[in-house]
């Protein structure tokens, strides 16, 4: 049942470029797709370990910069008269490095998350993203600072025996994004349905208890953070090679907020949530653009967001599946009616 609907959804998405000829809409789908990948990675942390990263764009941006710099080359002075010179590599190497470096950053932030939780984790991640943004802004020699990195090449896939294949058209990029998104989706799905995913859930619901039954908090959170950051880095790399210019604005808070909106409106902790939320909020501006004044578009955007949460407070996917399940007469797990959230959280 579930497998069938997944296959249908994938087939539908894969067929889009075959009938959708409007490059503008395709473009919107590609950028939306890139952000959906980012949102899926955020969902891994927020939805499955309960840690809200409001600096998730940092990993995305790091991926974008790493990938861009790898494929553009750089020449920077280091303290003590050293120079670090890098000649351009193919973009695909940039993509791989973006994943690796973002994952490493995720590792360090993960180590931090071992010490802080909840609101404190939120602030650490915001701070991390801000610091990274300020470095990108001020380390002009490496990143060109606000002058932006331009002329970033498109991704080219090496085809053994055939040379390489540059992904230049929208359709190419669309499929690239779709494939990366699918891989990320499957990876996350496997992870959360594994034994390891249960450990993450346990941690999210009752950390003290989780520790006492032998769940390794640090390891679990760190692995989740590394995978999440690596996926975000992949998204960032796609972004850099598609938009072909990046400046420190990629770290803008509103970009994190966009991902958060996609995740929570779609339903955190549900695999399809970020995809559904992402499609809605990625394409909503496209829908609103022709019908109202710019300021009104934002107001409507906020209004739609609020309306969705009023109607489906647990997010679109979980709320709808619950309702559908009830209609079909299936008994879903009886959810506890929160008498008091506060008391539930007290460990004592």
């Amino acid at each position: 049942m579930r497998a069938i609907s997944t296959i249908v959804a994938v087939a539908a998405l894969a067929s889009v470029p075959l009938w959708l000829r409007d490059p503008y809409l395709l473009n919107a789908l590609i950028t939306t797709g890139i952000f959906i990948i980012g949102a899926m990675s955020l969902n891994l942390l927020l939805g499955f370990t309960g840690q809200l990263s409001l600096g998730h764009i940092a990993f995305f941006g790091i991926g974008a910069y790493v990938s861009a710099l790898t494929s553009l080359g750089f020449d920077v002075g280091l303290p003590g008269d050293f120079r670090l010179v890098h000649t351009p590599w193919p973009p695909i190497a940039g993509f791989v490095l973006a994943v690796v470096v973002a994952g490493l950053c995720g590792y360090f932030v993960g180590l931090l998350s071992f010490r802080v939780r909840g609101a404190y984790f939120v602030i650490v991640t915001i701070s991390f993203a801000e610091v990274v943004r300020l470095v990108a802004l001020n380390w002009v020699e490496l990143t060109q600072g606000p002058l932006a990195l331009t002329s970033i090449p498109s991704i080219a896939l090496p085809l053994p025996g055939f040379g390489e294949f540059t992904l230049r058209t929208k359709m190419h990029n669309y499929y690239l994004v779709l494939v990366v998104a699918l891989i990320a989706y499957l990876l996350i799905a496997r992870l959360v349905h594994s034994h390891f995913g249960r450990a993450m859930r346990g941690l999210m619901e009752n950390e003290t208890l989780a520790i006492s039954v032998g769940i390794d908090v640090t390891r679990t959170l760190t692995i989740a953070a590394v995978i999440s950051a690596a996926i975000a880095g992949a998204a960032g790399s796609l972004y850099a090679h598609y938009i072909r210019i990046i400046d420190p604005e990629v770290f803008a808070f509103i970009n994190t907020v966009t991902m958060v909106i996609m995740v929570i409106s779609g339903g955190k902790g549900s695999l399809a949530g970020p995809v559904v939320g992402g499609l809605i909020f990625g394409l909503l501006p496209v829908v609103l653009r022709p019908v109202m004044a710019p300021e009104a578009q934002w107001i409507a955007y906020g209004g739609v967001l609020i309306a969705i949460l009023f109607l489906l407070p647990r997010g679109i996917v979980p709320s709808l599946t619950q309702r559908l399940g009830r209609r079909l007469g299936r008994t879903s797990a009886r959810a506890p009616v929160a008498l008091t959230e506060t008391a539930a959280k007290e460990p004592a």
Partner: protein
Amino acid sequence: QTIKIGVNEPLTGAFAASGTYVVNGAKIAADEINAKGGILGKKIELVIEDNKSNPTEAAAVAEKLITSDKVPVLMGAWGSSLTLAVMPKLMEYETPMVVETSSSGKITTTGNPFIFRISPPSAIEAAAFKGIVDKLALKKVDFLVINNDWGRGTAEDFSKMMKEKGIAVGLVETMDQGAQDMSAQLSKIKGSDSETVIVTTAVDQLTLIFKQAAALGLKKRIITTGGSQNPDQIIAQAGAAANGTMHLTTFLPWFPEKTPNPEATNYFVSEWKKRGFDFAGCTESFRGYDGIRTVAAAIEKAGKAEPAAIKAAFWDIKVKGLNGDIVFRKSGPEGKESGQSQPNVYLIEINDGKIEMKTL
């Protein structure tokens, strides 16, 4: 049947105020042209889209204007990173764009032959300033610039020019876009041994800087650059603190008679006022006005509203802009040059709450 011109400007987000001014200027130009019967016998129609001050959106907007609205030519996109994000799309769809505001040198040097810029990059501004520095007897200058391509670019190009002139360059301080408290930077500058500060940022931060400098008792000569100063707004908001400050500007709405094209300036300023806009906005909006008139001239010259023809025509036009003739010269790598026109630059001074032309 109309001829469509795409306008890609920030109408929401951080640059909303400026983008809106430019769009309003563009509308005046369009109405004026249409009142005179349009071009090639058709009315022109501005297709205005908000790029939300966001590079991704700016690229998407360009995509939409070109592919959905089928505009043969664009104007945009205010900020340099917005314009830079649009540029690959211009290459992709081979559609020209007039750049009315962005100042980053990269825009015309990376080999994008679809770019035609009427605003001065900081290097041109610096070159224009070069002629005046002797008369100001500068010895050592500090910089206080906004931390973006515009501010950084200005600091770089002006420093280079100063050094050529034998003027020492002291501190280069930056401030973030949206920062409200610059006293730390100003205190540092106060303690340095330079006598002049070059300040580059938008009007809001200028206002704050003048006030905060006055509060700190900073008594150095302040020269602002970049042409986004809106001196009237500064006078209104900074009051006495603005007295004595000098500004490099690209438009003189206060002294139409001193502009290269007094008649047009008069018309534009009176139309601007008639529409109930804030006079202070003139110094930004005139670029939108000039930009659309430039586009219209190119279409007229091309004889048809097609991208390739319009692109070719840009090289052959000479428009009487509000700030001198708009004529595109080649800039950037050979064979793929972008167009860059050479606007005039003026120095004005605020005295007793009034704007004076600095005659040197």
